[in-house]
């Protein structure tokens, strides 16, 4: 038997890897800061010239600048590695946000959110599975769309893809549909919230329950108000914490049908899929509750969290290219869109019911 020479995997130099992300991170920071400057100055300028101009927050400016670049000149190659770090900043921002929550509040709010998240996940998976079958989508693509809309967008789709041996094509369809719908949610959710006069608390929980990707959920919350942004991140983090259980259930289902590998060590599987930033968030919250940080220090940590989110919001705009998303096919998008509208309406009903029970 002949031997096959495998290509050598060259270790990546960490210093080189760091240098590769610098231009993109600087671009995220520049766009985020431009958003802050525009928020501060456009309103003043309009007022000075007696123009009627809506007060646009830095979150929306940062997203709009990113969208404008991505959909016109595109993101040059030199910036791409750094722009892709927006999820890293999102997770660091969520951990630091823990300083703004007392652990008791996290448990109280998280407990209420957990009940709503549980209901949302079951209903979303059942409805997306029904829709996928009704539209004649491939069963594994249906599974990916169901997990993406029920749990946490892109991360959940990637985790499930590996666990159920889905095709690359199916996962890219599902990711494109979830990203396109997340971009639409950024503009529609705040509009609906203001139209029906939702409180910050109710809106934040709704955005956390219904917007799929964590970055978009955080942005949709922050677009409404600072308090709504906090609640949206907390509710979305509760959803993220359940990712392992949902992926495990799908892995069992597809393995039982002989179309995926069986799961070996279940505890290890759950630990690997569990988002570790949730633990970081809880630990920082516990330290803040134990008065480990002074009031000024909590203020400083909150501002660090805001800076990290600012980079994330710039990244959300930069990585959304409508032309590329539109090439991914109409059927998965249609299933995703119908599913998202129904899930958004259902979770809004849940939030109204919870408002009565918990007196938000």
């Amino acid at each position, binding site marked *: 038997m002949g031997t096959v020479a495998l290509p050598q995997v060259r270790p990546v130099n960490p210093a080189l890897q760091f240098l590769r992300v610098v231009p993109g991170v600087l671009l995220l920071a520049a766009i985020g800061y431009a958003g802050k400057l525009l928020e501060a100055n456009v309103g003043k300028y309009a007022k000075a010239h007696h123009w009627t101009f809506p007060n646009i927050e830095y979150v929306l400016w940062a997203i709009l600048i990113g969208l404008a670049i991505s959909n016109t000149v595109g993101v040059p190659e030199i910036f791409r590695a750094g722009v892709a770090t927006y*999820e*890293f*900043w*999102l*997770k*660091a921002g969520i*951990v*630091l946000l823990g*300083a703004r929550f007392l652990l008791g509040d996290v448990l109280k709010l998280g407990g209420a959110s957990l009940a709503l998240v549980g209901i949302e996940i079951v209903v979303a998976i059942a409805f997306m599975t029904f829709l996928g079958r009704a539209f004649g989508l491939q069963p594994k693509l249906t599974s990916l769309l169901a997990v993406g809309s029920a749990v946490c967008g892109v991360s959940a789709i990637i985790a499930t893809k590996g*666990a159920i041996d889905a095709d690359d094509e199916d996962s890219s369809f599902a990711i494109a549909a979830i990203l396109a719908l997340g971009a639409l949610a950024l503009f529609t959710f705040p509009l609906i919230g203001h139209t029906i006069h939702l409180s910050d608390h109710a809106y934040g929980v709704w955005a956390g329950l219904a917007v799929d990707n964590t970055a978009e959920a955080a942005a949709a919350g922050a677009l409404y108000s600072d308090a709504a942004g906090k609640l949206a991140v907390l509710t979305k983090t509760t959803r993220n914490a359940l990712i392992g259980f949902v992926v495990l259930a799908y*892995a069992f289902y597809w*393995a039982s049908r*002989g*179309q995926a*590998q*069986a*799961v*070996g*060590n279940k505890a*290890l*599987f759950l630990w*690997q899929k569990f*988002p*570790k*930033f949730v*633990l*970081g968030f809880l*630990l*920082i919250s516990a*330290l803040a509750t134990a008065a*480990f*940080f002074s009031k*000024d*220090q909590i*203020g*400083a*940590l909150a*501002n*660090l969290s*805001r*800076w990290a989110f600012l980079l994330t919001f710039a990244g959300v705009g930069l990585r959304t290219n409508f032309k590329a998303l539109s090439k991914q096919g109409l059927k998965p998008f249609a299933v995703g869109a119908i599913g998202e509208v129904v899930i958004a309406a259902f979770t809004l009903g849940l939030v109204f019911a919870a408002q009565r029970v918990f007196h938000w």
Partner: protein
Amino acid sequence: MSQQEQTAVTPAKQRGFSVDAWAVLLAFVLAALVRAGVFKHIPW
């Protein structure tokens, strides 16, 4: 795929830290620096 052909998914050993772990590490380092008084005031 028959039952015998199915192989258990043994989670692959990851080299280094995941993005999640790096993000948590950075947040803790920043929190420690704030606690130690290295960063006294972060403007917004």
